[in-house]
């Protein structure tokens, strides 16, 4: 079985996968392993984990092609449902933005907007775009991580859901910064997406009015 060495430390455990860190030839990696679910039929379980691993790896590499800053994939071990990828050194954006001056905050938000624009322009919706899934390095460069719920799509609604979820996550964790952040975010987002921006914004408004997403993602932020 393919492997790049023993994982050392588990740094995150989600509903679906565990994230470990490991060192490979002096390079810091993370391994994202989809955990078997004992409630599922073993054949079905294996199929789902392999499919999702392959799809996530494909999406990440496609995102990279479109210039989105995200982890570089080193190896995909389908049998073990594990993706080995570059470890992004930095801090979750949600722990950073409270300590920035206005100028830096607006610059960071613009960059996150541009990243999201590139992703959407490339036909990918992130599916779980919150500030926990944006890592910021010491030079204030943002990276997108966790593409576990991402999909290839041309549907404007799915892009709008990304924008909406980001806004909601700010509303619950950084209410006072929300307006400033989203204004700059939209600026950066618009420079990449141009023409279709207003269509997406219309969709965002429509989603907000439905109310369906209001509470359900609040804890994700």
């Amino acid at each position, binding site marked *: 079985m393919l492997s790049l060495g023993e994982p050392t430390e588990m740094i995150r455990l989600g*509903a679906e996968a565990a994230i470990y860190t490991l060192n490979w030839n002096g390079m810091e990696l993370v391994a994202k392993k989809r955990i078997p*679910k004992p409630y599922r039929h073993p054949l*079905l379980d294996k199929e*789902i984990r392999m499919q999702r691993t392959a799809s996530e790896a494909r999406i990440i590499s496609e995102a990279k092609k479109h210039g989105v800053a995200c982890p570089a994939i080193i190896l995909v071990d389908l049998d073990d449902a594990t993706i080995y990828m570059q470890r992004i050194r930095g801090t979750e954006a949600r722990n950073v933005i409270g300590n920035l001056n206005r100028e830096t905050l607006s610059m960071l938000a613009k960059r996150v907007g541009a990243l999201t624009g590139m992703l959407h322009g490339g036909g990918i919706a992130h599916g779980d775009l919150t500030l926990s899934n944006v890592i910021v390095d010491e030079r204030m460069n943002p990276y997108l991580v966790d593409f576990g719920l991402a999909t290839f799509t041309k549907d404007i609604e799915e892009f709008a859901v990304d924008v909406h979820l980001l806004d909601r996550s700010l509303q619950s964790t950084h209410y006072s910064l929300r307006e400033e952040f989203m204004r700059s975010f939209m600026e950066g987002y618009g420079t990449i997406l141009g023409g279709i921006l207003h269509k997406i914004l219309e969709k965002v408004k429509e989603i907000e009015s439905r109310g*369906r997403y209001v509470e359900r993602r609040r804890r994700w932020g």
Partner: protein
Amino acid sequence: MGLLLHKDDKHPRELSLWEALKEGTKVVLGIESTAHTFGVGVASSDGRILANENRVYKPPKGGIHPREAAQHHARVAPETLRAGISRAGISLSELDGIAFSVGPGLGPCLRTGATIARTLALSLNKPLIAVNHSVAHIEIGRLLAGCRDPMVLYVAGGNTLVVTFSAGRYRVFGETLDIAAGNCLDAFGIKAGIGPMPMPELMAEKAKSFVQLPYTVKGMDVSFSGLLTAAFLKLKQGVALEDVCLGLTETVYSMLTEVTERAVAYTAKKEILVVGGLARSKRLREMLDTMARERGAEVYTIPDEYAGDNGAMIAWNGVLQLLSGMVVDVEDSRVKPRMRIDEVDVKWFG
């Protein structure tokens, strides 16, 4: 609300009805008529179900036809009402309110129940209470299973929802993007000639091998229509019925368990309540149990009689609404076939 027993109490104290009425206990009659079932229940504010009489429409062949189901309801209504009242041992004049399912459901069926409820309320001069069917499923579950603040999986022929209470309402975490889970299994069973649930699940127990079918979870949402089509296709290709049944039921239940798990993981809730007709499935319960054990959570279920559609749940929700002052005028009691669960202010939660 002072009349309600403490929610921890799994065994409501026994009062004779006479004692209860003397203490000021409220008694509500509830009418359920959203789909197949015409039900009459009677519940009291000390947390007791005094009657639960249900008559289920069985189509001669195929699935449910809304108008025919409504005609069935109108036909059985007088007898069901009499049975409910006599079982409760109460006279109509002693009731404190008349509750009915206002939605979501099939229009003709809803209107039949609503008409009966309005007639009773007007002629007896009692408050009319419009109950959301989905909320009622949850509340009877909380009452009988004895859980406080659960993540709820509501799975039935017409509904598939993962919901929990937050900020005054039951909020939707995940739901089906097309047909309901129960609808998928029923439709398959009927068209395959074995009949609706539980037939597909019983058939699956005889399977010899596992058939892969499309598994569609999108974030927190599920989709079953592609799965149903694929299952029919397998049959057409000559795959054994038992094997398709296994593939189908395993896939449906796994999808439901996965979205429930995600919701539980995000909210860290420790109680999982399963309600709706499909809550009767043994295999689904087993999967949820396995998942819950790993997460340190517990699965709560209720007796079959109260899991599917029934009159008692409407009566009990009627009690809760009556005590919260949530009654309607006849003019405002129009049925809402597409009513959403998150439209309802759940004032009594606590």
